[in-house]
């Protein structure tokens, strides 16, 4: 039976995907019936509450939309910063290499929540000490800054791994064709490396998407914060939190499946 099922679902991948999500929701429902029988989803998930959690207050960005906004902006910024850092760590220039290594190792050793606190509380102090003016950043900006600082350390490692995976022959072939180092790097090495890095960067985006829930601590009204606000008002934590858990699961699961598909595709391209 299992063989038949496997072949069937291999042929209909999207169907398999939907079945998975439905199955997990059914499992959750069973769990709720046994462990928490007096849950009342109808009162908790009114259309107003759902609208607030998904899109925030009227006229301003919030909720799940803001979560995606933060994640996308931060991944773009950290892609740029991370590329610079990764190339710096890969390069032969000692001072660049050492400073990039220190940055990457420092940020990879810190918890994200500490980075968020550092940025949120230390920017005014450091700014005040250095420029003798009052530097004020709002929570959203400092959230994006801290995600950029944190994720770029991880992206730098991905970039470095991608650069390392390029065979030496490519450099030599480019040299034979009379290219200078800059041309070699921008025209030959980087495009190939970036293609290999795409799946890893998509999975990094998934983890960033999950990590955006941490800006809860500095009061950005993204998806998780919006849910806790609703929860504080009506105090039905089981219903609210299982709702956001399912939404988070669906988004992250979809994205990680996309990353898996990309990985297969890229592996095929490289091998042929």
């Amino acid at each position, binding site marked *: 039976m299992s063989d038949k099922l496997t072949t069937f679902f291999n042929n209909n991948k999207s169907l398999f995907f939907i079945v998975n999500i439905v199955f*997990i929701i059914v499992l959750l429902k069973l769990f709720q019936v046994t462990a928490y029988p007096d849950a009342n989803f109808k009162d908790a998930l009114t259309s107003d509450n759902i609208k607030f959690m998904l899109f925030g207050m009227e006229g301003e960005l919030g909720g799940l939309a803001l979560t995606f906004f933060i994640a996308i902006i931060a991944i773009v910024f950290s892609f740029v910063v991370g590329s610079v850092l990764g190339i710096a760590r890969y390069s032969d220039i000692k001072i660049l290499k050492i400073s990039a290594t220190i940055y990457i190792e420092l940020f990879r*050793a*810190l*918890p994200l929540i*500490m980075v968020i606190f550092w940025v949120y509380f230390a920017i005014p102090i450091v700014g*005040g000490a250095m420029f003798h003016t009052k530097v004020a950043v709002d929570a959203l900006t400092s959230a994006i800054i801290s995600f950029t600082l944190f994720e770029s350390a991880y992206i730098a490692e991905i970039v470095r791994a991608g650069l390392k995976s390029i065979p030496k022959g490519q450099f030599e072939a480019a040299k034979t064709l009379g290219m200078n180092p800059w041309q070699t790097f921008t025209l030959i090495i980087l495009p190939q490396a970036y293609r290999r890095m795409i799946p890893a960067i998509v999975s990094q985006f998934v983890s960033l998407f999950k990590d955006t829930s941490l800006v809860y601590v500095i009061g950005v009204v993204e998806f998780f914060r919006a849910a806790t606000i609703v929860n504080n008002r009506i105090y039905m934590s089981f219903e609210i*939190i299982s709702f*956001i858990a399912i939404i988070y699961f669906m988004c992250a699961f979809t994205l990680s499946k996309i990353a898996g598909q990309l990985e297969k595709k890229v592996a095929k391209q490289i091998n042929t």
Partner: protein
Amino acid sequence: MGYEFDWSVLLTYKQLLIDGFVMTLKLSIIGIFFAFILGSIMGLARVSKNFFVSLFATYYIEFFRNIPLIVQMFFIYFSFSIADSFPFLQTFGHFIGIENYNEFFSALVALITYTSTYIAEAIRGGIQSLPKGQMEAAKTLGMNYFQTMYYIIFPQSIKLVWGPITSQFINLIKNSSLAMTIGVAELTFQTQEIDSITFRGFEAATAVTLLYLFLTLATSAFMSLIDKYALIKTSSVKGGQR
């Protein structure tokens, strides 16, 4: 307006920092221990030949990996009073010397489920990258499935994926800082505490940052010591031929 540093607050409130450090250690060590066991079981189940066992493991891994850790913590903490439902947790909590059972164990359970999925994926990768010949050779020697897994496959694959597992352990230590959101008094929580008492957040954050650096560096040093002296030495996995 300048900011004048006053590092003496760290000496005044050193007891808070020490308490926080010990709490982080407790969370990390117990969390790493159980996450490794659960992750190994799930990783082995994921590659099992039994369809339903591997299906269960797949659902477990995908489910707990794709929900943010903070959501899991809040879910357990606000929806269930976990220490009241399972009284043995209170005994255990009393044994390791903590006071707020519910907060501590909600954070701990969420950390364990979240990290174990990553460890399971790492172990699955290790098992699948082993040459097939290992399994067949063990079969030829007359070993049954569990013997093969226990003596042949698992030790080699653990050696192979020790690096990713180390980084997951470090991730668990770092993620234990999220326990502050539900009120476990660990290191990050104590930073906020010192900040709110003295308004000296900068100094406290520096000290805590250094402590986290020390913890992660010590963990990776310890893990490479284990790698050097305690894990099996094998050459068969280096070749990677199938």
